[in-house]
C-alpha cells in the first residue's frame, strides 16, 4: 500500500462538505441566496473535479494495491478504523462522480427555482457521500457512506420531484434500505468472524464456504436492489420519473454503479466460492432483466421511464460481465458502467432539456424536434447511438467486452445477451424517431427554443468523452487492468474451476 504525505483522498471526499458550510453561511434575500448558492455549488464541485483529476494523473496504474491510502484512529478498541484508498476499480468511479456533479448542478441552473440553497446542499452532500463510498477501505466507513446516500437522494426526489414524488421517494428509500440492512447483518457477521472491518484484511481472509453462501446472499440483497436487478428494479422507474433532471443524472450516472462496484469490491474477492455458486443464478436474472425490461421499455409512453428501463437492461450487461469471472467480462462490466454513467446522464439531461420547454415527458407530445432544435438532435443522436452500442462510442466497447467474457463463461448466456443488444437498438431508435424525426406540425414544437450555451456546455464534454473513449478505450482500460487481474487472482482457485466447467460446455456445444 502506498501512503501519501497529505490526506488527499480525505480532502477530496470532504471538500464538498466545506461548500455546504459556505452555503449555510450565505445571507440575504432569496434571490441573492439562490444566485450565490448556485455559484458556490458550481465552484466547489468544479474544484473537487479538478482535484480528482490530479489524483487521476498521479495514479499509478501498474500498482496492484491501494494508493493514496489515508488511515486514522477511530474505534480502536473495537478494531474499526478510518481508512481510505483507491485502486483501479474505484478510481474511475471517483472521477465519474466528481465529473457528473458539476454538470448536474449546471443542469438544474434554471429548472430549480425554489429552495435553491437546500438543493445545492443536498447535491454537495451527495457528492461527498458518493466519493466516500468508492474510496472507503473499511467496511463500516463504506457502509456509513453507502447508506447515508439515501438521505440526500430521498430529499432531492421528495422535495424537488414531480407529481408523485412522495410515493417514489418512499419507495426508493425503503427498497434500498431493506436491501442494505441485510448487508449490515452480513457485515456484522464478518466482523465477528474475522475480527476486523478492514477491507484489505477481509479480502485476504478466507471465509468458510458455507458462511460465504449466506454472506453473499446478504450482500447480493443490497447490491441487487441498488443496481437494480430484476425483480427488485421496480423502484428505479418510479424514482427516475419523479426525480428532477439532475437527480436522475446522478442516480443513473453514479448511484446505480455502487451495486456493481460492491460486487467487484466485496462479493468476488471475499466470497469467491459463493460467487461461482451463484453465477448461474445471476446470469438467469440478468438475462431476464435484459430481455424483459427491454420489452417493457418498448411499451413506454414516458421518455424518462423508457430510459430508466433501458438502465435496468444495461445493468444486466454489467452483472453478466462481472459474473463471467474472466478478465474480458469484468473489464467489460467496468467499462460499461463508466460508459453508462456518461450516456445515461446525458440522456436524462436530454429529456430534461425538452421537459423544461414543454413540461411533458410524453413521447407522443413530441415529433420533429429536429426542425426546431438541430443541435439538440445531434447530441441526442450521439448519446442514443452510444446507448445502442454503436462502434465508435463507449457503449460498444463495454457491450463487446461483456459479450466476449460471457462467451467464454457460457455460450447460451452470450446468445441471450446479444438479443438484448438488438432489442436495445429497437427501443432507442424508435424513441429517437418519434421524438426527433417526423414533420413538426404542432406550434409548440416549432417554437421550441434552440439549445442555449449552458446546455451545450453540458452536452459537449459528455459527447467528447463518449466518442473519445469509444475510439481509445485503452485510456480507461489501462487504469483498471491491474486491479481487475488482482481481483480475479484473489479468487484464483474458484475461477479455475469455473473455466474448467465452461471448457466442457464449449466442447459440448461444439460437437
Amino acid at each position: 500500500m502506498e501512503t501519501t504525505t497529505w490526506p488527499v483522498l480525505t480532502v477530496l471526499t470532504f471538500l464538498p462538505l466545506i461548500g455546504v458550510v459556505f452555503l449555510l453561511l450565505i445571507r440575504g434575500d432569496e434571490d441573492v441566496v439562490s444566485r450565490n448558492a448556485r455559484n458556490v455549488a458550481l465552484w466547489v464541485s468544479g474544484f473537487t473535479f479538478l482535484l480528482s483529476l490530479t489524483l487521476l494523473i498521479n495514479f499509478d496504474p501498474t500498482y496492484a494495491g491501494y494508493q493514496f491510502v489515508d488511515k486514522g484512529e477511530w474505534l480502536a478498541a473495537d478494531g474499526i478504523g478510518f481508512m481510505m484508498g483507491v485502486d483501479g476499480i474505484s478510481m474511475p468511479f471517483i472521477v465519474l462522480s466528481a465529473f457528473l456533479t458539476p454538470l448536474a448542478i449546471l443542469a438544474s441552473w434554471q429548472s430549480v427555482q425554489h429552495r435553491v440553497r437546500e438543493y445545492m446542499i443536498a447535491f454537495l452532500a451527495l457528492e461527498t457521500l458518493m466519493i466516500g463510498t468508492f474510496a472507503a477501505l473499511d467496511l463500516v466507513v463504506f457502509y456509513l457512506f453507502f447508506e447515508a446516500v439515501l438521505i440526500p437522494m430521498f430529499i432531492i426526489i421528495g422535495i424537488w420531484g414531480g407529481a408523485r414524488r412522495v410515493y417514489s421517494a418512499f419507495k426508493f428509500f425503503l427498497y434500498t434500505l431493506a436491501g442494505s440492512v441485510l448487508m449490515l447483518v452480513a457485515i456484522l457477521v464478518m466482523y465477528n468472524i474475522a475480527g476486523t472491518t478492514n477491507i484489505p484484511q477481509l479480502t485476504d481472509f478466507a471465509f468458510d464456504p458455507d458462511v460465504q453462501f449466506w454472506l453473499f446472499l446478504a450482500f447480493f440483497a443490497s447490491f441487487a436492489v441498488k443496481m437494480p436487478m430484476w425483480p427488485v428494479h421496480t423502484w428505479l422507474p418510479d424514482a427516475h420519473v419523479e426525480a428532477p433532471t439532475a437527480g436522475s443524472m446522478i442516480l443513473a450516472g453514479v448511484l446505480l454503479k455502487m451495486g456493481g462496484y460492491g460486487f467487484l469490491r466485496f462479493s468476488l474477492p471475499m466470497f469467491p466460492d459463493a460467487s461461482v455458486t451463484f453465477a448461474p443464478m445471476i446470469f438467469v436474472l440478468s438475462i431476464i432483466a435484459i430481455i424483459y425490461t427491454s420489452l417493457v421499455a418498448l411499451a413506454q409512453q414516458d421518455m424518462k421511464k423508457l430510459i430508466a428501463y433501458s438502465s435496468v437492461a444495461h445493468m444486466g450487461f454489467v452483472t453478466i460481465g462481472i459474473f463471467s469471472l474472466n478478465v474480458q467480462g469484468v473489464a467489460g462490466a467496468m467499462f460499461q458502467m463508466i460508459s453508462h454513467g456518461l450516456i445515461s446522464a446525458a440522456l436524462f439531461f436530454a429529456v430534461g432539456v425538452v421537459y423544461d420547454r414543454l413540461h411533458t415527458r410524453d413521447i407522443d407530445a413530441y415529433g420533429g424536434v429536429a426542425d426546431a432544435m438541430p443541435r439538440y438532435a445531434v447530441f441526442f443522436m450521439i448519446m442514443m447511438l452510444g446507448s445502442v452500442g454503436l462502434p465508435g462510442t463507449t457503449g460498444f466497447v463495454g457491450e463487446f467486452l461483456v459479450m466476449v467474457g460471457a462467451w467464454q463463461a457460457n455460450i447460451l448466456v452470450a446468445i441471450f445477451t446479444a438479443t438484448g443488444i438488438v432489442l436495445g437498438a429497437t427501443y432507442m431508435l424508435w424513441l429517437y424517431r418519434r421524438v426527433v424525426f417526423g414533420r413538426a406540425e404542432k406550434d409548440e414544437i416549432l417554437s421550441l427554443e434552440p439549445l442555449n450555451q449552458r446546455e451545450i456546455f453540458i452536452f459537449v464534454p459528455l459527447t467528447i468523452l463518449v466518442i473519445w473513449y469509444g475510439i481509445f478505450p485503452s485510456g480507461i482500460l489501462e487504469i483498471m487492468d491491474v486491479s481487475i487481474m488482482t481481483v480475479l487472482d484473489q479468487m484464483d482457485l474458484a475461477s479455475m474451476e469455473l473455466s474448467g466447467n465452461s471448457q466442457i460446455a464449449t466442447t459440448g456445444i461444439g460437437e
Partner: protein
Amino acid sequence: MMDLLNLQPATAEIFLALASLGLVLVSAFVAPQEKASKLVRRLTLISFAIAIFLTIYNGSTPAYAFNGQFFTSSFMVYMKVIILLGAMGILLMAKRELKQDQIDRPELPLLMLLSVVGMMLMVSANDIIVLYMGLELQSLPLYVIAAIRRESLRSSEAGLKYFLLGALSSGLLLYGASLLYGFTGHTSYDGIKIALENDVSPGAVIGMVFLISGLAFKISAAPFHMWTPDVYEGSPSIVTAFFAVVPKLAAMTLFLRFTYGVLADASDSWQQIVMIIAVLSMLIGAGGAIMQTDIKRLMAYSSIAHMGYALVGVAAASDLGIGAVMLYMTIYVISSIGVFAIILSLKQEGRPLTRIEDLAGFSKTHPVYALAMMVLMFSMAGIPPMGGFFGKWYVFSAAIASGHVALAIIGVLASVIGAFYYIRIIKVMYVDDQVISIDNHIPRSNTMIALGAAVLMAVFLFGLGVLREQITAAVPFVVFVAG
C-alpha cells in the same frame, strides 16, 4: 468494605432525599403558588446538578453501603448521570408548559425529584427489598403526575391506567422476587447470584419469569406495552417527555443488573424470554406506529420499538451486549429529549399541537427546527451517519457475537418498517403545505435542547470512541461480588 456506617457511596441519593423534603417545606411556605412553583423548579434543577456532581465525585470505585444493600460502581455512576441529565433536560423545558397547561404548581418538579430518587435507588439497589422500595418510590409520583391535570378527563384516565397497570406490574415483580427469595434463601443480589451458580430450581425460574415480566411492564416492552400509547397521549406533553426518557432508563438499568448481573448463571433460562420480548417489541413498535396520527402516540410506539432493540443487547447476555445497551440507551435519551423539545415547541396560540399533520410546512416556517427534527428522525430510524445507527450497530453486533443472527435479521427488518414512519414525519415537514400556523415564539431552553440533541446525533461518530471507552470500563461492574 461492608462498613455499616459508611454512607459515602449513597451521598447523592441521601442529598436528593433531603432536598425533596426541604422543597416540600419551601412549597408549603412560599406564598403565591406561581412563585413557589418557580422557586421549587429552580431548586430542583440545582439539586440535580449537585447530585450529578456528588455522583461523579464519589468516584467509580465499586463500593457497598447499608450493609451491602446498596452498591455503586462506574456502571451505576454512568447510568445515574444520564438519568439526572435526562431529568434536568426535561425540567429545563417545563417552564412554559407548566403555565400553559395550567399545572403551574410546585408539586410537579417535586414529584419528579422524588421519582428520580427512587430511580437512583433502583439503579444502585443490591437487594430485592431495596429494589422494590426504589421501584415504588419511582412509580408512585409518576402515577400522580400522569393525572396532574385533574380537570382533564384524558389526563385522569392516563393516570388511572398507568396506576392500575403499574400496580399490577409491581405486584408481578414482587411475586417474582418473593419466589426467588423462597427458592434461593437470599434477598441480596450477591446471595441470589451465588445460590444460582450451583443450581437453578424450577421455582427460581418461575420467579425469574415474573420478575422479568414486571420489569418489561416498566420499560413498556411488548406484550406488556398496552398502557404506553394511552398514557403518552393523555398526559400533559411535558410529563410524556419525562415518561419517555427517565423511568425507561432506570428500569432498563435494573433489567440489565438483574438479568445479566444477578441471573447471569441462569442465562439459559431467561435468554429466550428476553429474546421473545425483544422481537415482539420491535415488531409491535414498528407496526403499531404506522397508522398513528398523533405524534405522542407515535413516540409511544417508537419507544416500544427502541426498548425492543435495547433488549436485543440484553438477550446477548454478554459484556458486549451490556455495553451496547448502555450506548443504545444513551443515544435513545438524547434523541428522545430532542424530539420532545420540538414537540413541546409546537403550539398554536398557546394550545399544544400533537397531530402529525400539524407539522406540515414546518420546514418553511421554522427551517432550523425542521432540520433538527430531520436529523433526529433519521437518527431514530438508524440511518448512518447519525448516532442512532451506532446504537443499532453495537446491539446487533452483540447479538451476532452471541450467535443470535436470526434476532439481528428480525431487528434490522423491523427497523426498515420503523424507517417508514420516521421519514413520513420528514415528508410532512418538507413536502406538505402549511395548514396550521405554528407559534413563532419558542423558548430558548427548547431551542437549545432540540438543536443540541440534533448536533450531538449528527456528530456522534466523532465522540463514539471516547464514549465506548467509558462504557467498556464500566461494563464489568454491573454486579460485584466481593471475595
